[in-house]
C-alpha cells in the first residue's frame, strides 16, 4: 500500500513535466511548420542568413573586323577595385600589398581598409596588368570589377566609317552607332551563392555580335593616303574618296578629310565625327549629265544618234543656261554632250524629256532619297519636283547639269554604279557578315531597282569611255594604260545665300573600270581646291593615280590578259 502510494506520488510529479515537454516540442514543431510554409519568401529571405550576393556581368561589345579579319575595333579591359574592410583580417599587411600594386599612398589605403564602411572603392580604373596582379593576391575581401573599354588599333584608319563608343558605352556614328543594338552585349545581374553545395553558374555574359565589314583596310589606307596627298597638293579644304564594287554595292573603302582618331574622339570638334561621304550634300555639277542622258536614252526620248544645234546658250524658265566655255558648239550629238560636258546639251535633253520623265529618271537613280547604307547619319539629298514651292521651270534645265539639286557623294557613286552594273541599282553596303554566337548572318547584295535598261547602260558606258579617251581637256588624263576606263568630271559652283560663290568650286570625278566588266567604281571629290579651275585638271589625274594602284592591289589584269583569261576559263573575278 505504501509502495503504491509512493508510485502514485511519483506519477503525479512527473505527469505535468511530460505534458509541458510535449507542449513545448509541439509548439516548436508548429513554429517550424509555419516558418517553412506560411512566411512570405521575402520575409524568409530577410530572416535567413545572407549566403547569396548579386554580381554584375558586363558583356563584351562585339568586335569590328575588315573583310579579311583584321581588327578595326576591339575591347580592352580596365579594372575597378574595391574592398570589404570587415572581411580583412590582417589590415596592415593587405594595405601594404595593395598600396604597392596600385601605387597608392599606404596610409590612405590603410585608413580605407580600416573604415567601418561595408565596401570602399580603392581605385576607379587600373590597367589589365595591374588588375591581374591584384587578382593574384586571391583575397576574398577584394572586389574586382572588370570595365570594358573600346579600343581602335588602327588609329585614324576608317574612323568615320567605324564611329566610336562614348563614355556611356553607347556607339555613336558609323558602324558603332548604326549597329549599337547588335554590337552591345546584354549586361546581366546574377545571384551567386556562397554555399559550397550549390553548383556554380557559368557566368559567361551575353556578348555582342562581331561584325565583318566589306571594307579592305589596305585599300582604305591607300585612299586615305591619296586623299591626304590631294589635300596637300591642291589646297582643298576637304574631300572624299569612295571605292565601291558596282556589281554588289559593297563599299571597299571610304574616306573623308578631315578625320579623327576614335581613341581620342573628344580631341576634335563634334562636326568632324560626321561622315561627309554620306552626310554632306553638294551640287554634283556635270556628273549629273550622265544620269540625264542615261534617263533620256532609257525612256527613248532620244537615241544615240540624236543631235542638236548648240548655240552656246538656252533660255529655260526665265534663266539663260550657258556652256562652261561660253561657246557655241554647233551640231552636237549625245556623245558630244558628255565628252565636251555641255550644259546647253544637257538642258536640251531634259527639256525634251519633260519634267515628268526627267524626275522619274532621277528618282530611279535614287536622287533625293537616302541610299539606305548601313551607316548612321545619312542625308537624303535634295531634289525639288513640280508641286514643291521651291520648284520652278528653270529647275528642269539646271538640274540636268547638276545645279539646283544636291546629292551626297555616296548617292552619286551609287547612281553611276547602276550604269556600270547594266542598269541595276544596288544598295550600298558595308557589312559582309554578322556573327552572333553560333549564328553567322551573311550579307547578300541587295538589289534596289532597275534604274535603266541594260542597253541604255551599255550605250552610256561607251560614252563615258569616250569622255576619258577623246577629251582634250583632261590634261593629264584619267585613263589607265591597258584598261578601258569610263568616267565623268564635275565642277560645281558652291551655292551661297546670295547666289554662287566666286572662285570656289567642288570638283568631282566618278568613274569605273574595266568599262566592259566593271570591278571597281570610284568617286573623288575635292572641296575648294586652289590649283586649278576644272575637275579635269585637278581631280582626273588623281583618279588615274588611284586607279593605277587599285588595279595592282585588286589584281585586275589589263584588258588583253582579262579577255584571254575569259576566253580560256570564263569570267575573271577581281
Amino acid at each position, binding site marked *: 500500500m505504501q509502495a503504491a502510494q509512493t508510485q502514485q506520488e511519483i506519477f503525479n510529479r512527473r505527469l505535468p513535466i511530460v505534458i509541458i515537454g510535449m507542449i513545448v516540442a509541439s509548439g516548436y514543431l508548429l513554429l517550424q511548420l509555419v516558418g517553412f510554409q506560411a512566411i512570405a519568401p521575402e520575409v524568409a529571405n530577410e530572416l535567413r542568413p545572407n549566403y547569396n550576393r548579386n554580381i554584375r556581368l558586363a558583356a563584351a561589345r562585339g568586335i569590328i573586323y575588315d573583310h579579311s579579319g583584321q581588327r578595326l575595333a576591339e575591347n580592352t579591359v580596365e579594372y575597378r577595385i574595391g574592398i570589404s574592410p570587415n572581411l580583412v583580417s590582417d589590415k596592415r599587411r593587405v594595405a601594404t600589398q595593395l598600396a604597392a600594386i596600385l601605387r597608392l599612398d599606404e596610409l590612405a589605403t590603410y585608413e580605407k581598409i580600416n573604415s567601418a564602411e561595408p565596401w570602399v572603392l580603392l581605385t576607379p580604373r587600373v590597367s589589365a596588368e595591374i588588375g591581374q596582379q591584384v587578382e593574384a593576391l586571391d583575397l576574398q575581401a577584394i572586389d574586382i570589377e572588370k570595365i570594358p573599354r573600346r579600343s581602335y588599333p588602327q588609329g585614324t584608319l576608317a574612323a568615320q566609317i567605324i564611329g566610336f563608343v562614348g563614355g556611356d558605352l553607347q556607339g555613336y556614328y558609323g558602324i558603332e552607332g548604326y549597329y549599337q543594338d547588335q554590337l552591345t552585349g546584354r549586361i546581366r545581374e546574377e545571384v551567386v551563392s556562397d554555399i559550397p553545395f550549390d553548383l556554380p553558374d557559368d*557566368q559567361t555574359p551575353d556578348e555582342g555580335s562581331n561584325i565583318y565589314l566589306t571594307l579592305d583596310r589596305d585599300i582604305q589606307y591607300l585612299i586615305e593616303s591619296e586623299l591626304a596627298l590631294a589635300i596637300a597638293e591642291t589646297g582643298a579644304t576637304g574631300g572624299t574618296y569612295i571605292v565601291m564594287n558596282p556589281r554588289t554595292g559593297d563599299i571597299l573603302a571610304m574616306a573623308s578629310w578631315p578625320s579623327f582618331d576614335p581613341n581620342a574622339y573628344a580631341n576634335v570638334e563634334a562636326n568632324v565625327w560626321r561622315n561627309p561621304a554620306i552626310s554632306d550634300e553638294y551640287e554634283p555639277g556635270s556628273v549629273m549629265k550622265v544620269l540625264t542622258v542615261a534617263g533620256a536614252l532609257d525612256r527613248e526620248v532620244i537615241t544615240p544618234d540624236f543631235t542638236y544645234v548648240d548655240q552656246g546658250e538656252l533660255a529655260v524658265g526665265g534663266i539663260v543656261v550657258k556652256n562652261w566655255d561660253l561657246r557655241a558648239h554647233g551640231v552636237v550629238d549625245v556623245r558630244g554632250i558628255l565628252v565636251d560636258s555641255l550644259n546647253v546639251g544637257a538642258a536640251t535633253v531634259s527639256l525634251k524629256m519633260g519634267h515628268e520623265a526627267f524626275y522619274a529618271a532621277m528618282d530611279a537613280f535614287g536622287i533625293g532619297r537616302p541610299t539606305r547604307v548601313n551607316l548612321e547619319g545619312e542625308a537624303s539629298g535634295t531634289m525639288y519636283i513640280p508641286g514643291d514651292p521651291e520648284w520652278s521651270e528653270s529647275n528642269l534645265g539646271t538640274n540636268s547639269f547638276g545645279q539646283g539639286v544636291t546629292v551626297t557623294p555616296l548617292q552619286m557613286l551609287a547612281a553611276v554604279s547602276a550604269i556600270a552594273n547594266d542598269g541595276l541599282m544596288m544598295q550600298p553596303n558595308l557589312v559582309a557578315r554578322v556573327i552572333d554566337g553560333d549564328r553567322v548572318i551573311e550579307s547578300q547584295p541587295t538589289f534596289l531597282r532597275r534604274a535603266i535598261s541594260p542597253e541604255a547602260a551599255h550605250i552610256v558606258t561607251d560614252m563615258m569611255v569616250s569622255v576619258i579617251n577623246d577629251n582634250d581637256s583632261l590634261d593629264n588624263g584619267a585613263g589607265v594604260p591597258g584598261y578601258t576606263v569610263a568616267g565623268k568630271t564635275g565642277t560645281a559652283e558652291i551655292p551661297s545665300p546670295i547666289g554662287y560663290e566666286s572662285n570656289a568650286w567642288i570638283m568631282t570625278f566618278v568613274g569605273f573600270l574595266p568599262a566592259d566588266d566593271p570591278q571597281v567604281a570610284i568617286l573623288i571629290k575635292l572641296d575648294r581646291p586652289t590649283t586649278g579651275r576644272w575637275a579635269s585638271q585637278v581631280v582626273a589625274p588623281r583618279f588615274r593615280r588611284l586607279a593605277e594602284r587599285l588595279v595592282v592591289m585588286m589584281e585586275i589584269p589589263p584588258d588583253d590578259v582579262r579577255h584571254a583569261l575569259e576566253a580560256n576559263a570564263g569570267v575573271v573575278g577581281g
Partner: protein
Amino acid sequence: MRTPTQDWLGHALRNTTWRWRQQTLALGVLGLFVAVIIGALYLTQAASIATLNRQLQDLISERNRLEQSNEQIRSEIAQLRTVFRLRSRALELGFVEAQRDQIEYLVIEGYNPNRQTTQLQVEREGEANLPAYDETFGGWLQQQWDNFTRQFQDFSQSGGS
C-alpha cells in the same frame, strides 16, 4: 473523481518500466549504427560535392583568366599588325610597292580560276567528345566507398602531420 482519459494515461504510465531491456538496447544500437552510416554517407557526398564545386569554380576562373589573356594577346597582335606598322616595317626591310607595269599576268591554258571547290565535312567537336554513359549501381557504391575511405585517409594524414 477521475476521468476515463486520466485512467488510460495513468494505466499506461504506471505500467512503464524504467529498466533497460536487452532487445530495446539492441534495437537502439542498430538504429544508431544505421544513422551513423547514413550520416557518414551524407557527409561524404556533401564533402565530395563541395570539393567538386570548388574545383569547378577554379576551372571557370582559370578559363576566364585564359580567355582574357588571349584577348589581350589578340589586341597586342592587332596593334602590331596595323597597316601603318606593317608598311613601315616592309619599307625598312627593303620591300617596294609593285607598279602596274611590273606585274606580268600569265594565261595558263585550261586553268579555270573559278574552279569548283569541295568542302570537307567537319565533325562537330561537341558531339565527338561526348563520353559514353556506363555507370552502374555497383560502380556508384564502389565510388562512394572509395570517397569514404579517402576522406578518412585525408583526415588521418592531416591529423598526423
